[in-house]
């Protein structure tokens, strides 16, 4: 059974600080996705990482994938309040009929002014 573990699950950080969210998974996959969810809203796609060593950046967020270590990181640079949200990673695994996403439990980020 695939396990996708995120840590930390809760993160409170001050504006201007840097931090990293980790996503570990338990089986072979070279495709990983990051999503953002604001309270009471749907999920928004942030990054699609499709190979070992992939790195994507958008504004203050940078995601990377190490398939050998089965680890993805989401790095936050100089956090601002607008980044407060819950961040999910999801791993692509082949199922019976197609690939399926297995999600981590999410990291709730609160950026404090």
């Amino acid at each position: 059974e695939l396990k996708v573990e995120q840590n930390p699950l809760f993160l409170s950080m001050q504006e201007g600080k840097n931090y990293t969210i980790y996503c570990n998974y338990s089986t072979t996959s070279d495709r990983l996705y990051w999503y953002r969810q604001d309270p009471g809203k749907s999920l928004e796609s942030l990054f699609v990482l499709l190979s070992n060593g992939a790195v994507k950046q958008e504004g203050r967020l940078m995601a990377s994938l190490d398939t050998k270590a089965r680890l993805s990181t989401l790095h936050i640079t100089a956090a601002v309040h607008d980044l407060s949200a819950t961040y999910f990673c999801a791993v692509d695994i082949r199922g019976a009929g197609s690939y399926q996403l297995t999600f981590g439990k999410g990291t709730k980020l609160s950026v404090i002014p």
Partner: protein
Amino acid sequence: DAGITQSPRHKVTETGTPVTLRCHQTENHRYMYWYRQDPGHGLRLIHYSYGVKDTDKGEVSDGYSVSRSKTEDFLLTLESATSSQTSVYFCAISWGSGGYEQYFGPGTRLTVT
């Protein structure tokens, strides 16, 4: 925003009653998914479809059935709702499988009393 709508957006129902949730897309994507989101569990896949009349089970399919008679519509049915099915249900679509990001609908909040 991807053209995905879900109906109803909110529903309160009694234990033992049947409930059908609808997901409608205007993007002509082949793949459609139903997830449930519960606190502390992230998102879990219920069922998915890889074409008209082609469906398969996900991680938490017990108590749920699905149907897809048209490309644009994917229905999730709770034959006899239970309190454990109180949740937020998200529909998602993707163009392909494996390496294709999923786009999520706005969600349906279901309460079973």
